[in-house]
């Protein structure tokens, strides 16, 4: 438990596992391809909870026996941390951020050296790296495509923690690596116009859907039932 939660996030709460399993099933169901291995999770702006969704989904699926292949080696899950927000998946799992993706794309590190284990045996994380310097150029190189090919062979599921869709154009480039993209919207925070713009950034076929985060029922139960 203490490994999971950072001291500064001691009060963070996580969604119910059933909701996340349902999300995973729906994303798979929305894909027209049989082999949907790479999910990209983004949001319109920063601070809408996409990293929490990434972390929670990964933990639930990594711990879920139904995901594991029954007659083969237990399927591995990778979190590819490309986020630039206030919190990153790497920090959530208290893993060293370096070396990471940027070191690999610069050719300074091998792929095996930048993929880090977590407290769950089937869950791995590939941090973004030490610096976002020239990140936009690096991700447009061919090395990234090669890397994804290798990762697809090794992992059964890759969840990409994408940057916000409207704060950088890198999201559009990184989203091309994903089979399906999920946009996270935060109730009471995400502006409807910005969400509309973010949804238009992606191809309709690749866009699996929207996750409404931090939803709350403002009306009391007796009134909500009557309306």
């Amino acid at each position, binding site marked *: 438990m203490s490994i999971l939660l950072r001291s500064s996030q001691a009060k963070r709460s*996580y969604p119910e596992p059933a909701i996340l399993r349902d999300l995973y099933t729906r994303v798979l169901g929305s894909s027209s391809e049989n082999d949907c291995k790479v999910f990209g999770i983004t949001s319109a702006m920063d601070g809408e909870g996409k990293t929490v969704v990434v972390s929670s989904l990964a*933990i639930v699926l990594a711990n879920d026996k139904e995901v594991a292949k029954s007659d083969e080696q237990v399927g591995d899950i990778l979190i590819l941390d490309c986020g630039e927000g206030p919190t990153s998946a790497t920090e959530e799992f208290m893993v060293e951020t370096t070396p990471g993706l940027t070191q690999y794309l610069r050719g300074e590190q091998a792929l095996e050296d930048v993929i880090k284990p977590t407290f769950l045996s089937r869950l791995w994380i590939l941090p973004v790296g030490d610096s976002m310097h020239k990140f936009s150029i690096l991700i447009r190189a061919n090395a990234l495509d090669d890397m994804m090919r290798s990762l697809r062979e090794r992992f059964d599921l890759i969840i990409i923690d994408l940057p916000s869709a409207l704060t950088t154009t890198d999201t559009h480039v990184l989203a091309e690596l994903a089979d399906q993209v999920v946009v996270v919207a935060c*109730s009471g925070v995400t502006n*409807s*116009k910005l969400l509309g713009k973010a949804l238009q950034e992606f191809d309709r076929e690749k866009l699996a859907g929207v*996750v*409404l985060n931090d939803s*709350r029922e*403002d009306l009391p139960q007796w009134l909500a039932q009557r309306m």
Partner: protein
Amino acid sequence: MRPYLATFFRGKWIYMLVLAVMFSGTILGVWRLAHSQYQVTSNIWIGNPPLQNVLGQNSAYQQETPAQQEVDMLSQLIQTDDFMTSVAKGTSLSKQLTGVPDHDRAILTKLRQDISYEVVGSNTISIQFTGPNPILCQQVVQNTVKNLGNWMLQSQLQQSSTQMQYYKRQTTIYKAQMDNARQQINQFVGRFGAPKEGTAQYLQLQQLWGNYESAQGLYNTAQGNLNQVSIVDNLSRHNQSTDFRVLDQAKVPQKPYMSLKKVLMYLMMGVGASLGLVIVVVLMLTWMDKTIRTVDDISRISDVPVLAVIPNLELKEKGWRKGKRKRAAVRAVDMAVAEYK
């Protein structure tokens, strides 16, 4: 409707606090107002105007009661600065009057607004004044009654003089007719003597007598009216108005006063203003809220499906609920990790 209610319940404690503060302020304000306002009332009896007595019951003048006529007259008098200046005379307000119309008008307007009057019965009117100074209230009502009475007296004097002239002229005319008729009779008798009954001269003489008696009747009626008006005129000239009596003198009130109706009205205004403010704020916040809150909001902007709705699991660090919420929120993580362990 749902978005507005949701906006209200999101900030319900703030709105409740605003309502409580405003209502408390209203109660305090009404309480202070009720204890700082004094009211003085004077009731006046108004008799039928003399002209009405002369013109008769079926004249157009009869359509309004004397009290209604007096209130109409009073409402017009109060609109004049001269009348209000005379009302303010001898009170603490008179020191503020400088004689400059523009300056005095503001003071007189305020005084005018605080005077109220109403018809209590067909012959009774009530004059009231409300203000923070009990002595001023009594003086204003007393002066209003006095000046109204004087004005009525003057009107009565003018009216009675006009009437006297009218009836004098009538008596003169009818007297002349009477004398003329009498002269014709004398001339007829002098020429034809006393005619026998049934003759043409007899009939003519009877007609002349009829003319004389008719003129005499009219003369007597006009003379009676003239006598009546003379009595009123004499009384008026001796400052005894028969048509204006003060039933209740204006007295200095000992205790503040506010009618229950006014108290309720102010409370209702306060409640209405509070609720109105909250409603306006809720409406504005709802219209200005462009954020996504429900699945419907997402459906409105795109046909992309909503894959999951993750409820709010924020921990509330308050009092006795802390332990409960913490356990509930952490349970989700425990479920994910428990099998691993």
